[in-house]
């Protein structure tokens, strides 16, 4: 097991832990404040923990006669954020439909950096299978994201794929590898714009964009000019779910990309009549930021 695989597994475990904790939190009852400047009292009912306006969504921890025990929202008083307090039941109504608190609490502007790992299955799967022995492989990369308004976001990312296989001959669908090493490296710079459907903890999002793919193929015993180093425009759409817990979020996303007419003129790709360097990518992203 190489370092990349070990890292991937660790990230997967951490991501699962974040998701588990966030999912538990999101299962709590919520209430909506109906009276402006309602007070949330501390447990001694002597000191106000926070004052909230109408429309504020509060997570209910417990009930006590005429009072709800709630979590003090961060926006109301950052110093007491996540502490528990009590609000009079008459000042709130139970929320029957999950209201997007994040929509209310979400900042008007946010930024995050991210790193990601994933698996890419190429559209030219026969060609990759012929040379690498499998139709795709692991990718890694990172980037940055900026969010505006209630859901719009743009991000820029770079992905890297690199694997070494063997050169081959393909005849009548049969593949024979020749023992001459062949390294394929794909670097993709992508820009994506999309919309986040903000929720308290779980935020689905969709987007699409353009990219630039650098395709390099190098092999042993090659003369200058026999290796490949080309750039192609790519198109992609992406969808995913982001699970946030404070400043850290984990996203699971799937992207479909096309890099038309990038290959297929020679080599194994010509034998299989495969011309597209795109494919489907499954990624786990770890984001830091708001």
């Amino acid at each position: 097991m190489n370092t990349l695989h070990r890292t991937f597994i660790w990230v997967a475990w951490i991501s699962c832990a974040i998701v588990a904790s966030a999912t538990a939190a999101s299962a709590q009852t919520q209430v909506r404040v109906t009276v402006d400047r309602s007070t949330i009292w501390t447990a001694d009912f002597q000191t106000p923990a926070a004052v909230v306006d109408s429309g504020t969504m509060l997570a209910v921890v417990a009930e006590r006669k005429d009072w709800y025990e709630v979590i003090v929202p961060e926006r109301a008083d950052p110093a007491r954020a996540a502490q528990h307090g009590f609000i009079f039941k008459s000042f709130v109504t139970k929320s029957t439909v999950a209201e997007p608190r994040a929509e209310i609490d979400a900042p008007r502007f946010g930024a995050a950096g991210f790193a990601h790992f994933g698996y890419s299955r190429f559209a030219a799967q026969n060609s990759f299978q012929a040379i690498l022995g499998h139709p795709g492989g692991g990718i890694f990369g990172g980037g940055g994201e900026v969010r505006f308004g209630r859901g719009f976001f743009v991000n820029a990312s770079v992905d890297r794929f690199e694997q070494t296989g063997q050169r081959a001959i393909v005849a009548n669908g049969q593949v024979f590898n020749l023992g001459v090493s062949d390294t394929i490296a794909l670097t993709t710079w992508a820009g994506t714009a999309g919309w986040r459907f903000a929720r308290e903890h779980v935020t689905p999002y969709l987007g699409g964009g353009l990219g630039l793919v650098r395709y390099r193929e190098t092999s042993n015993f090659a003369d200058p000019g026999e290796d490949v180093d080309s750039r192609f425009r790519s198109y992609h759409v992406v969808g995913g779910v982001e699970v946030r817990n404070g400043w850290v979020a984990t996203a699971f996303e799937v992207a479909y990309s096309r890099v038309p007419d990038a290959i297929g003129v020679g080599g194994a790709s010509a034998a299989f009549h495969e011309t597209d360097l795109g494919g489907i990518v499954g990624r786990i992203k770890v984001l830091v930021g708001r």
Partner: protein
Amino acid sequence: MRGTRLRAALAAVTVTAGASLLTVASTRSISAQAESWTPPHRMLLTPERALALMTASDRHLEYVPGEVLVRFRPGVGVAGQQRALSALRSRPSPGDLRWIGDRALVTDPIERDATILAAQLNAQPEVAEAEPNYLYRISTTPNDPGFAERQWNLSVLDMPRAWDINPGANDTITVAVVDTGMTTVVRSYSFLTWNGRTTQTVSVPFAMNPDVAGARVVLPRDFVFWDGPVLDMHGHGTHVASTIGEDTNNSLAEAGIAYRVKLMPVKACVGFWEVQFVMTATGYRGFVPSDSGGCATSEIAEGIRYASDNGAKVINLSLGGPEPSTALRDALNYAVGKGAFVAIAMGNGYEDGNATEYPAAYAADIDGAISVGAVGRSLKRAYYSSTGPHLEIAAPGGDDRDGGSNGMIWQATIYRADSTPMTVLSPRFDRYAESGYEGTSMASPHVAGVAALIMSQGVTSPAVVEALIKKTALPLGASDAATPGRNREYGYGLVQPRAALRGFGLAK
């Protein structure tokens, strides 16, 4: 005892031989021999066969007189075979047939015209097909001038860099050379020969090619001369084998392409000396024609089957002739089916009418067999190299009109001056020298060697080897309109060992 049997057998053929030869060369005659000769091994080149080969040479026949290959219909038993053979005047017995795969070699000592024999047998309901036992020939023009700039052929193929990828294949690959043989012993044999005035016994020394390690020679087999060690009394087979796998990087002589493979000499062809020795032993006084000999379909087919049955992964056939033979085609299919790639010389008859030659013409329809034309050192088609739509690939074959003697293919083989027919009276085959030859016979082993290199890299399918060689060829000349990427003079172009060994990446 053996000698007695030999002489006794000859009594039966002398009449026929005499009758045949009278019309050929009246100055020749067979008389009581002055000396006797006892062959050390059971002779396969019988006096009848030697006489037939000599007759074929004299009359320019494309078949062995009196011999026909017959395939009986499925289910036909001995009784049925006997019925069919009864159509022939000599009424041969099924027990006398020599079987080569599913075909039987029928020899008729009475009717010498094999086309008549084939027609008679084809008229029988028990016979699926019958054809004359066609003769194919090795066609080269040996020359022994100076040695300057000898191996241009390996340079134009960029072999040094191909060897960077694959240095000479390995000993898991066996390449069979179905040809005049490649001597496998170091010793002398006594033969009777004609010295211009009388018959004399000569001691003929043989030696192995010093530039092919003995351990690399495996499973040699003689199908045509005798049931003993393989002897090359011509030089063609040795030259061809040297191109394929002469020892390399040993500071001796020349280099071969796949210099680590095992070589399997399969002798299916005889030349002047074999015929001369056997004919002299029969009491024949005189020289046989200098171009006596050849390679009969029966032995070629048997050799191909033997090679593929005994592990050969590549078979080289540097021979050909104008007559088609289904027996030969079936043998090729059999070999490819057994996993052997077959390289076949295209033919040297461009200036002699450019007739289609076989078995090369079959290669175009067999995935795993390839027909090979020749180019000279300037990569132009060699003047002799036959053309046609069945040509698949080109390789260096030498062309003395393109660079003189330096434009030929130079490899180690038996020293030609030691055995020039009718000039040398007591030949020797124990001395080797770099010799210049030209012909598609020389082009074919280049491709066979490259195929061996490819197979040693794990490509086990003959069809894929052929596809790889074609796809990586360097196109020469303009494509024919009907066949993009290919033409009648060069096929898909010049074989490119380095490109073939590198294969293809994903995009290029």
